């Protein structure tokens, strides 16, 4: 039999002036199941709380309703008081008769009637409350950082420098990501590799960081604090431990005409290769598809050359199982392939290149050793046209969003070009200049004012080849006239898009993504580096197009989130989580789809012989955030939400 205590707070005059608390207390005293019904001036005061505690002890109360201010104000206070009196805190509920009653109504009778309904409804609810215990989740203090670009490196270093273990996984043979490909960086024009490579080395040598390159995530199971991650170590055919990185094999490799991914096809590489000279680790891999031995069964020159016996053609992919507490996803982006713009001739005319290719041309370590030379004939271009928004902000052919970095890097390209080719001419077609950022607007002004970049506001309609020139036809919308420029080279400021396998990968780790394949943050404003899956954080351009400072800032933010998570051995969570009645569950999996947190898994119920009897849904309390969307979906009423159970809500309605 329920023994509910009802404590009606006057809140001074705040409630008392508009609600007849004496009448309310008397009415509640007459309600079935109510053992105590008392009023007091301030229940939140020390003596007030003491009186609640005494009443709990003296009457062996099975539940408490405090009719007072909003639960958002003092629910925690009174639940704590209940716990101190030996009553499970979740057997305490608040009837909000201040914010939602006495403060907003003028007629005392009506306000009192309403207060009675509110309180009675809450009494009916609390009769059906269950004792709940906070959920404790153990935490494995090891972070996984996926992606070895600048964001991943930054996150890994920040976490490792705080003394926590990190596993850094990169699928390419070397750390570095896109930043390693860049020449100089805006707005300071400092050399990208000069600031990048020390960080790469630091990450590789850090005692707290385990670096896995040429490795991919196979599967992620588990939940916050307790992920089980399987990593595929792709076979390099070069023994990481034996190889000294002398590079002799690379020099001797006869397959030399392979287009270099790192140089965006502007340079060549060998079949055994490191992506670039400063690769970390400086250990080559054999590109099986292009290796003469793998193709013809003969060659092995590299193996013969190697003095450390590091080449192993028999090598197989290996798998590593990791126990991980938190995951930072820093998988980056790719540049859009511009061949969809047939009118720009990308892919057709060798001298129409994209911005990343221009970076390689401008880079001292690039295929032209930093000289701006046309890919077609190796001549220095005298006139370069840059086309901004080649893909971005173009709902018809490209993407709807702004890629954010192109305005700045195009300005940078114009400056680099001007610095390298002194009498070169630059025309930049643009839609708008977006230069929000520290030093950014000044930077783009410099391109115009100091380096004489000519900005033309308008779109380019066509690029064609004529007499060895690239003819660029566009329109200058400010002057309202067509423009035609004979250029030697055209650079497209290509859109940043999500990785080709971004959506697949999101499913592997169980996070959400938007229509473009960028990963969804839990809350755009308030939780920008958390994914909707607890324990998985987002850094860098995998979440949306970003420049380097933003990526680094976000990476550090994820590190602080990871470190906060690792600051305790156990996570303690509110027990407001869904539960499933496996006996009645029909296994339709609608809840699995509806759950925003991937907190519901499919579970097989087996008989003693291991045969599947039936399949049901199973809620992982570590992941469940307690929204209850699944409960509402469940047609058989098998799911329920602790703290807001079907019985409780039914009773609340029936109590009105």
């Amino acid at each position, binding site marked *: 039999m329920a023994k509910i205590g009802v404590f009606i707070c006057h809140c001074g005059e705040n409630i008392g002036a508009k609600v007849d608390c004496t009448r309310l207390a008397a009415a509640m005293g007459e309600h079935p199941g109510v053992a105590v019904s008392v009023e007091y001036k301030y229940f939140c005061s020390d003596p007030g709380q003491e009186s609640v505690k005494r009443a709990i002890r003296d009457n062996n109360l099975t539940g408490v309703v405090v009719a007072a201010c909003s639960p958002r104000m003092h629910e925690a206070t009174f639940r704590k008081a209940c716990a101190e009196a030996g009553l499970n805190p979740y057997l305490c509920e608040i009837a909000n008769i201040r914010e939602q009653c006495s403060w907003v109504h003028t007629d005392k009778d009506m306000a009192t009637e309403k207060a009675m309904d509110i309180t009675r409804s809450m009494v009916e609810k609390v009769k059906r409350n269950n004792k709940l215990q906070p959920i404790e989740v153990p935490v494995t203090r090891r972070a996984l950082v996926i992606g070895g670009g600048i964001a991943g490196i930054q996150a890994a270093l920040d976490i490792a420098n705080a003394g926590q273990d990190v596993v850094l996984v990169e699928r390419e043979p070397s750390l570095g990501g896109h930043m390693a490909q860049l020449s100089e960086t805006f707005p300071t024009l400092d050399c990208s590799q000069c600031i990048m490579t020390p960080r790469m080395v630091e990450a590789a040598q850090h005692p707290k960081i385990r670096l896995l390159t040429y490795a991919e995530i196979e599967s992620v199971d588990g939940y916050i604090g307790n992920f089980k991650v399987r990593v595929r170590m792709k076979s390099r055919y070069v023994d990481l431990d034996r190889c000294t990185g002398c590079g002799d094999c690379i020099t001797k490799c006869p397959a030399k005409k392979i287009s270099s991914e790192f140089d965006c096809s502007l340079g060549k590489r060998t079949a055994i290769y490191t992506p670039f000279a400063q690769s970390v680790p400086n250990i080559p891999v054999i590109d099986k598809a292009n290796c003469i031995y793998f193709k013809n069964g003969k060659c092995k020159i590299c193996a013969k050359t190697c003095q450390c016996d590091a080449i192993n053609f028999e090598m197989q992919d290996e798998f590593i199982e990791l126990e991980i507490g938190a995951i930072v996803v820093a998988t980056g982006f790719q540049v859009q392939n511009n061949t969809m713009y047939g009118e720009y001739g990308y892919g057709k005319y060798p001298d129409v290149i994209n911005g990343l290719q221009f970076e390689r041309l401008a880079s001292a370590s690039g295929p032209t050793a930093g000289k701006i030379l046309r890919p077609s004939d190796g001549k220095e271009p005298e006139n370069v046209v840059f086309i901004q928004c080649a893909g971005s902000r173009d709902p018809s052919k490209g993407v709807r969003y702004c890629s954010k970095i192109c305005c700045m890097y195009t300005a940078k390209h114009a400056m680099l070009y001007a610095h390298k080719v002194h009498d070169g001419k630059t025309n930049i077609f643009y839609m708008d200049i977006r230069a929000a950022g520290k030093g950014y607007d000044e930077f783009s002004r410099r391109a115009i004012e100091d380096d004489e970049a000519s900005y033309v506001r308008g779109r380019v309609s066509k690029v064609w080849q004529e007499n060895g020139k690239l003819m660029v036809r566009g329109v200058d919308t400010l002057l309202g006239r067509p423009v035609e420029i004979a250029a030697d080279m055209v650079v497209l400021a290509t859109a940043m898009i999500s990785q080709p396998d971004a959506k697949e990968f999101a499913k592997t780790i169980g996070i959400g993504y938007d229509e473009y394949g960028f990963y969804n943050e839990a809350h755009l404003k308030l939780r920008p580096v958390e994914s909707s899956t607890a324990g998985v954080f987002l850094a860098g351009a995998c979440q949306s197009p970003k420049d380097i400072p933003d990526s680094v800032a976000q990476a550090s933010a994820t590190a602080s989130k990871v470190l906060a998570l690792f600051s305790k051995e156990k996570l303690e969570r509110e027990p407001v989580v869904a539960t499933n009645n496996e*006996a*009645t*569950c*029909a*296994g*339709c*999996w*609608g*809840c699995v*789809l*509806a759950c925003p947190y991937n907190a519901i898994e*499919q579970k097989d119920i087996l008989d003693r012989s291991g045969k*599947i009897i039936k*399949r049901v849904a199973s809620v992982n309390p570590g992941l469940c955030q307690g929204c209850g969307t699944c409960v509402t*979906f469940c*047609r*058989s*009423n*098998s799911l329920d939400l602790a703290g807001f159970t*079907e*019985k409780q809500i*039914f*009773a609340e309605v029936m109590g009105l």
Partner: protein
Amino acid sequence: MSIEEQYRTRAKELLAGGAVKMVIGYGKGTTGERRRPIFITSPDEVERLVLDEACITNLSGYLVSEGLLSDEKRVAVFLRPEGVRAVNILAAESQLDSDQLVIFGFDVVGNEIKALKGIHVEEFADVIESLKESAPGVAKELLLEKIESMSPQERFSYWQGEFAKCIKCYACRQACPMCYCRRCIVDSNQPQWVNTSSHSLGNFEWNIVRAFHLSGRCVECGNCDRACPVNIPLRLINHRMAEEVLGTFDHFAGTSKTQEPVLASFKKDDSETFIL
């Protein structure tokens, strides 16, 4: 050779060769106009199979009978396009593995029986797509038009009159291939969301909840409507809801076995004209 004959021959081959363990089809009924579901397990019995324009019951509900498909053996089943759609939904909702099915597809056009090509659900995609295309154009039943032109009060009274007949025999639920729950919400009594008594309120709640649970899932096979022993025009409610999800979410139930349930998915730009 008639379609009936072709299908009998095929059924015989499948059973004789052990390719399927059972053929679920139609047999003669009590009266000349009636057909009843039959379950053939021996090639000698295939002559009992009947296929004509009276074969209207959607047999897909039998596929989720407890234990039928759990041995991973295959079963053949006679299905109209609605039946194939129902199988798609059952597969999408993990109630069966459609690879275990061999479909004898057919349709009734006028008084003609038409064979549908294909044996796997995937092969009926075009048929279903054309059903979807034609769905909005299907002429409305007069009664439905009449109901839609009523005032809310009249409609309430109309349905009260219909629901008053309900005896809570749950023939609608039992006949429906989509009602596969191990425990129906009406049988959940903690709390008792739906009043089980067959009184005006209980009947109203039951019929409305069933209609909601079928929204976006009903393939309009008509099993419930035909099963109802007290002639409540259940098809009208289900049709109205199918029309709603098609119009609002472009969702046509059962187009494929991977279709997401309309109420477990969403689009950020879903219509919301009525939300203040």
